[in-house]
């Protein structure tokens, strides 16, 4: 029953989403430094990916609660597509990083962690109903 001036109320807009974006960018920066220093993916990168995955799963949980409350995304098809893609990204990065124990493994982690914030933002956009 939030009838505030801003009609957001999207579950993908909270502190959890902000934390996921910030952490993802931090891991990307860390992995970039590792790649530039010819270092394979280290423990920090894998831990970062693990925590990121937990945050994203938290986002799924918050979304599920909102859905149970009767809220609905503006573009359901895209929204759930992005949501499923999102939770697959950190595991994908981790698997590929383990397959490539060279600087390029770190580069893969960096690339995936740059894509993740974009998907989070798209997730937020597809929740809101576009006027018109």
């Amino acid at each position, binding site marked *: 029953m939030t009838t505030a001036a801003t009609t957001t109320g999207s579950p993908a807009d909270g502190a959890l989403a902000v934390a996921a974006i910030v952490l993802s960018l931090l891991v990307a920066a860390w992995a970039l430094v590792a790649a530039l220093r010819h270092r394979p993916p280290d423990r920090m990168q894998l831990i970062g990916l693990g925590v990121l995955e937990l945050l994203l799963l938290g986002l799924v949980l918050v979304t599920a609660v909102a859905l149970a409350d009767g809220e609905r995304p503006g573009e359901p098809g895209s929204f759930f*597509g992005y949501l499923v893609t999102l939770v697959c990204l950190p595991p994908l990065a981790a698997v590929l990083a383990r397959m490539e124990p060279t600087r390029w493994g770190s580069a893969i982690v960096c690339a995936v962690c740059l894509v993740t914030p974009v998907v989070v933002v798209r997730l937020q956009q597809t929740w809101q109903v576009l006027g018109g």
Partner: protein
Amino acid sequence: MAELSTARPRTNAGPGRLLIAVYLLFAIAASSRAALQIATRFDEAPLAYLLSALAAIVYVVAAVGLARAGHAGRRIALACCALELVGVVGVGAVSLARPDLFPDETVWSGFGSGYGYIPLVLPVLGLAWLRHTRRRAAGAPS
């Protein structure tokens, strides 16, 4: 003869693996987008959505080609990268010249501007990588 088999061009290690990862991401993005567009509103822009589907297939096949390495994989990857380059430049040009033909976005419209121009850069990197690995694997008679 044994040297021939060990001198196989490896397209699926080192930087190639990063390339495969990015191709995978684009395969996911393009195919889910195309599937959604075709399933929910195909009538609105059939040409754009069919092109989205084509782009999706090309990304998937290119990723598989690069990952499989070997000669067949290389040939497949080469064909896909070339097709991608033609597609992104062609669709990009047409989408600017005749916007009415593309009422909705595809991965390739505006030279991939909706995706940070990565669709334009990716096939070039792919072709460069194929060229690079072929040179390194030289010694085997063509």
